[in-house]
């Protein structure tokens, strides 16, 4: 199916009220502008906008869950964090070059085995209590071996960024972007229509800095 360019892309191109050096643009009526703003909702986990997560063996998943449990904070009520993070990461892997995604699988395997090669336990990370698993990560984080640093950086970055992208984590840290973003969309709409910003639209200054 051929997809014609959607009208909201065109209406996004609001020309400046300033004079363009050359009239290369086409004026788009500002009343149609609203269609060009973001919906802000999470995308449904169906359809074509996001790729399907890569497959991972049950053993690989258990290893990854062990890593996730050791890395994520306990102070946020998210009982299905390992499953959720695993699924998101498997989806991200779909977008990575095959070699990078393979490297990530190796990282999971190597970190799962870390208690053994660090001489801390005969059990794999997945089998250790969370506190003990965290000690393994502490040991790893002090390594001066570049390969270990890179492995840790990749896994920790993926897990922590995914965890702190969840609604429960946002709530725990007091981050609520959507109401603010909706307000900004409305304000922009008003500015485009020619209305000025009110004092209430300014972002309040904190003590010690000038507005």
């Amino acid at each position, binding site marked *: *199916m051929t997809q014609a360019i959607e009208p909201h892309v065109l209406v996004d191109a609001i*020309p400046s009220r300033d004079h363009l050096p050359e009239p*290369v643009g*086409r004026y788009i009526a500002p009343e149609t502008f609203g269609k060009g*703003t*973001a919906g802000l909702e999470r995308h449904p986990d169906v359809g074509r906008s996001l790729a399907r997560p890569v497959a991972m063996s049950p053993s690989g998943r258990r290893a990854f869950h062990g890593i996730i449990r050791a890395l994520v904070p306990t102070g946020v009520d998210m009982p299905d964090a390992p499953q959720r993070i695993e699924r998101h990461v498997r989806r*991200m892997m779909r977008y990575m070059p095959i070699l990078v995604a393979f490297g990530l699988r190796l990282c999971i395997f190597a970190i799962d085995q870390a208690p053994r090669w660090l001489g801390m336990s005969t059990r794999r990370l997945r089998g250790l209590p969370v506190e003990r698993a965290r000690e393994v990560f502490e040991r790893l984080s002090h390594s001066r071996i570049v390969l270990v640093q890179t492995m840790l950086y990749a896994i920790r970055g993926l897990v*922590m960024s995914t965890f702190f992208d969840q609604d429960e984590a946002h709530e725990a840290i007091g*981050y609520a972007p959507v109401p603010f973003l909706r307000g900004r969309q409305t304000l922009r709409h008003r500015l485009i229509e020619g209305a000025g910003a009110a004092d209430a639209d300014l972002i309040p200054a904190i003590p010690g800095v*000038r507005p």
Partner: protein
Amino acid sequence: MILRYEDYDRQSVFTTDILVIGTGAGGGAVGAELAADGFDVTFVEEGSYHPTSTFNPYATESVPRLYRDSGATVIMGTPQIPFVEGRTVGGTTVINGGMTYRTPDDVLDTWQDLTGSPEMGVEGMTPLFERVEGIVHAKHQHEASVGNDSRIMAQGAERLGWKVEINKRNQESCTGANLCVFGCPTGAKQSTLVSYMPRAMKSGARCLTEVRIHKLLIRGGRCVGAVGRAIDPITRRRGPRVVIKAKATIVCGGAIQTPYLLKRHRLGKPSGQLGRNFLCHPNAKLIGFYPGRVNAWQGVSQYSQVREFHDEGLLFAENFIPPSAMAANLPVFGDRALELLKRYDNAVVSGVLVEDSTTGTVSRGPFGMAIARYDITHQDHSRFLKGVELLSTLHFEMGADSVALPFHDQPFASSMDEVRRIIATQTSRHTLELFTVHLMGTARMGATPESSVVDLGGQLWDLPGAYVADASLFPTAIGVNPQITIMALATRVAARLIEARGSVLAAA
């Protein structure tokens, strides 16, 4: 019209006047200019088409859709430098901060000297900058968009007597949603997705999305198009072969993907410069934590830049990021991470950008991977340490109670004495944590085939019909955000093609 994966089963061979590979700052600009002049233009974009209405504040959805390789991209070297670039209609302009700095005059003077052409100097480039700035609405921010992190940075610099420059950005009525990195949710940032690309479409251009170009079509020593494979957006597997026959092919894949493609054909031989001269403006993040709530996620990113140390190749700016990105960059985990992220509202993220004093390389790796390599010099390492100390001074001057430093072995300090003590221990480049988004210089423009990869019109010296119009063209680093320079040079490439319209259309 925009075509996508499902369309290529029905049609997989296209004929056009101009093939533009990439839709970012270079591709969008050159394609739109040529389409407006009546050329039949076909864009090819590896990513999908994600309009503004689909943008949201969630990293787990935005990063895979909008970023190359889901953001898992690294420049190899000492230290390794993660980088990001866009892979979506609009390219990196969809996810950048939207700075619209012109190339500094001293850099243009150097370019003029290097190329021997006044076109590359201040006088030659100024009309191009004016044109581009008009199209992307480069201007200062509305006061309602300015947040507290911007105020802290600007007022901190003022207190220390440092020069601050208020940024112009490519925006129309930006209200400071501060979500530039996941696609502007208000449509204010004039990325090529909402500026150049709609103009091109209105002029009759088409865009083949979800196609990765693998090789150029070369017949009789001339480039006559390109061949790629469609990419299934659900499985990411390679689909139908797509062939685009063109009278001129303009490669605009950026400073890593462009040499990757051209190197397949062993081009750039006269100078040996293809894939060399890789420049990346490495930068280090420094987070100031303040006793009160700053709410830095409210208000525009990079309202200003501290330019006091520009002569030394140092530039400071605030650059706030969503909590997911902050969590990924802090060298902590578990409850310690939560404890720190609970101070997200108290944090100001800032960066030290260092102008390159060396260059790296880009080469072809296995499985379709481009390998970028770059080692910072000891001189750059010293400059980073100096930048970190200066930026820490600013944060403590403004009342920060602690800072997170870009050293993975000693990441936190709660006083300037502690910062200095930690800096004194930083003798290895390996412990420095860097990042970059400015990738430049791997198919440099020049006046002779012995010193450059492309001529001043962007055409490859050793492959007529093939052009480059992206950040690869830069002969040297520019020390500022490169978006406008890329667009200006792409506009120059378009102008040259327009001048040569007759011979271009008669070719092939």
